[in-house]
Structure formats: C-alpha cells, structure tokens
C-alpha cells in the first residue's frame, strides 16, 4: 500500500513573480483510485497569507482549522493580521510539535509582506522543515511532475498576468501525468492591491 500522504491525492504549487505571488491547487479528493469529491479546495486564507495543504485529507481539514484558530488568536493579541514570514514559523512549530506523530501533509505558504511589500513563498516537509525558495514551491502527489514543469517554465520577473499563465500551465500539465490529482483546479494571483481567484478549465478524467 502507498503512504498516507498519497491516499487522497492532490497537488499544489506556489510561484513568485514581479511584485506578485501565485498559489494554485487541484480540486480532487479521492480514496485511492476512487474519486470522492471534485470540490475539495486545498488553499486556505488567513488575512493576507495563503496556505496550500496537500496530503491526508483529514489532516488537511484538521490543520486548516488549527491555523484558523491560531491566526485568529494572533490577530486578537497583536491587533494586526499575521505576516507570511511569521505564519511560516507558526506552521513550522505547529508541525514540529507533532515530531513523533506527524500530520501527513505538505504545506506551502504564499503571500506578500504588508510592511515591505515583498513577495514571499515557502514550503515544508511533514515535520516542519522550512524550504525558503526564491522561485517556486511544489507539493502533493504530483510534486515530481511539478518540479519538472516549474523548473522549465518558471523564469524571474514575471508580471501578474504572465505568472498566471505560467503557474496554470505548470499545474495543468503536471496534473495530467498524475492519476491521483486533477478534477478541476484553482489559481490565486496575489498582488498588494488585490487577489484574483480563477477556476481553470481542466480535464475531468
């Protein structure tokens, strides 16, 4: 049998562009080969931070609620929304707390720091080791394919509209070679002015 992170399937990817970041995921949730849902979004929003959570669906839902709780508390105590860098450390320590009984997830974080307006993305392994990347982060059952796609398609300094095309094509073509991911996809293009969420046209097999 496969590993717990691959039971439900799903993939996510984040990219940095010029004064913008993008984060995208598929919509499938299955039970091994059996598709269960085509409306399972894996990206969660906390203020100006976006979190992509792939892996075991029960842990995805549990953790998304844990972070909702923790970021709400943070906002009440600090009287401001959490910044992406701070949130990344929150994710890291939350995951490492379960070092010897981890959540089976692969989180990715994307956002723009509201103080210096710098784009920020990062990824984690299941026990909270942060991977700070200047280009892109991939996660989920299609991560091998996504590494290949992003490594060839990504280039520095992409404008928001170009970044959308690049991340969408990277995700779409990555998903096509993963049986456990697909069934729809969403992309968030984040700039300091606005966040555009787009539902992509994808194969449904």
């Amino acid at each position, binding site marked *: 049998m*496969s590993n*717990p992170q691959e039971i439900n399937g799903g993939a996510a990817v984040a990219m940095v562009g010029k004064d913008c970041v993008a984060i995208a995921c598929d919509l499938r949730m299955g039970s091994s080969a059996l598709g269960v849902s085509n409306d399972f979004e894996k990206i969660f929003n906390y203020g100006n931070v976006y979190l992509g959570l792939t892996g075991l669906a029960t842990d995805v839902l549990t953790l998304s609620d844990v972070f909702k709780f923790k970021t709400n508390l943070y906002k009440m105590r600090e009287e401001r929304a959490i910044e992406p860098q701070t949130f990344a450390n929150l994710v890291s320590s939350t995951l490492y707390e379960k070092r*010897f*009984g981890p959540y089976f997830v692969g989180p990715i974080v994307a956002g723009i720091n509201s103080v210096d307006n710098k784009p920020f993305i990062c990824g984690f392994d299941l*026990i909270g080791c942060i*991977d700070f990347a200047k280009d892109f982060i991939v996660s989920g059952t299609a*991560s091998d394919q996504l590494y290949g796609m992003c490594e060839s398609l990504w280039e520095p300094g992409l404008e928001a509209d170009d970044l959308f095309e*690049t991340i*969408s094509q990277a995700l779409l073509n990555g998903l096509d070679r993963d049986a456990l991911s697909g069934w729809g996809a969403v992309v968030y293009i984040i700039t300091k002015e606005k966040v555009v969420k787009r*539902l992509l046209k994808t194969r449904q097999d």
Partner: protein
Amino acid sequence: MPGLSFENYQRNQHLATSGFAVPKTTSTGTTIVGCKFDGGVVIAADTRATAGDIVADKNCEKLHCISSNIWCAGAGTAADTEMVTQIISSNIELHSLSTGRQPRVVTCLTMLKQHLFKYQGHIGAYLIVAGVDPTGPQLMSIHAHGSTDIGYYLSLGSGSMAAMAVLESKWKREMNKEEAMALCTEAIESGIWNDLGSGSNVDMCVMEVGKDSVLHRNYRTPNVRAQKERSYKFARGTTGILGQTVRNLVDVVEVPIANEEMEVDS
C-alpha cells in the same frame, strides 16, 4: 523538548502496521566540515536538501547561529537540526543572561548532547559545533545518539568520506585563516562533486578570537544555473478559465476633510 505531542502517534503507528509506508522527511544529505586555525575556527557546509532522491532545496542554509560567537553545522533530518539548534540557542541566551558570562562552546555541547541522549537517537541531528569563547577557539561534533568528539578537523554527513579524504591529505598544523578557509572549501566541494546527497553551493562561517564571527553565505557557487536560451512565457489567454472572483485588498479609509465644522473655536 517540553511540549512535544504524541496525539497522532497511535493513529500513525496503526497506519504503518496496516501497510502504509512512513512518509519521507527532508534530509540534509549533506557534507559539513570544520577546521581550526591559529586564532580561530571555520565551519562550512554544502546547500543541498533532499527528500529521498528528489532535491527538495537547492540552496538551503545548514549553518545555524547558536549565539554571536558560536555557530553550528547540521546534517541528518533537516527539521531536527533546525529545531534542536533553535532550542539550544534560546537556552544558551538565557544561560548567559543568568550567569552574566559569554556563552562557551562546551556548555552548548553539553546541552546538545544531554538533549539528544534523552531522545535516544530519535532526533536525527548530527552537528559540528564551533566557536570562540573565553577559553579560545573550539571545535567539536555530536552524533544523534548523544556522543561527542573533539578534533582539529572534523567532517560529518553523507559526504563526510569525500570531505575527510581531502582533510586527511591536506590538513596541517599551524594554518592561517585563509589556508583553513581554502581547505574547508575544497573539502565541501569534494562532497558536492562526489556525494549524491550533497550539491550546489558552499556556505562558510569564520570565527576568530577577538573579532565578530563572519558568515559567508554562498562563499562559492560552482553550480550556477545557466541562463535559459529561450523564454517559455505563454501568450496571455492560453489558459482556459471557467470563472473568476476578485478580492480587493486596498482599504477604503474615510478621511475627514477640513471644513468649517472642524473649527474648534470661532
């Protein structure tokens, strides 16, 4: 570590026994070295992080700051080296505050070894600890089970054989800073080229008696990605869209404009 939770342990153990493989953690594959010289000590590391046979991070940081005068190079489970280093860094800060003394490398080493021994090797951190303190330059290593070694030159990680080959053949007594830095660079590069678990760049930290320690991030970059010959930018509109929603982040703030009503006195 106080507060580690075993909430999911039984569930995960059940999953493991019913045939689900245990997922991979990020490992720092790694070549790390350390070398003493006259009046100081230098440590160096490669910058590749791996998850199985996938390169997870091409330019990660394996040199961790414990205090301003003590630095640590980590190999093994990436999350463990990071977290154990952060915990001891914070305890060292508190310790030096309460004793009113500059922290010592042996203190740091003892804290680390007692912590790692308590966890019986389950915290997979293999560290080279180095620094300058009131007793002079110090260089030591710790294995995950809590055993420690002292040496003039040390190497750890999957590329330690490649690095040690260089150190054993080229190390000599009484080296100056430049010679030690060159030796460590060559040892790490030996790991970068000959060990699959190590790659990308060389990070280095130099600690000298009476001076601030200096971190040379990406001291050598022998694996720069070549500029792409062609752009793979897609024409805008390539991707088919089914729907779109926009969330505006620009706050609308009502600013009162000064007018007659604002006058306080008349």
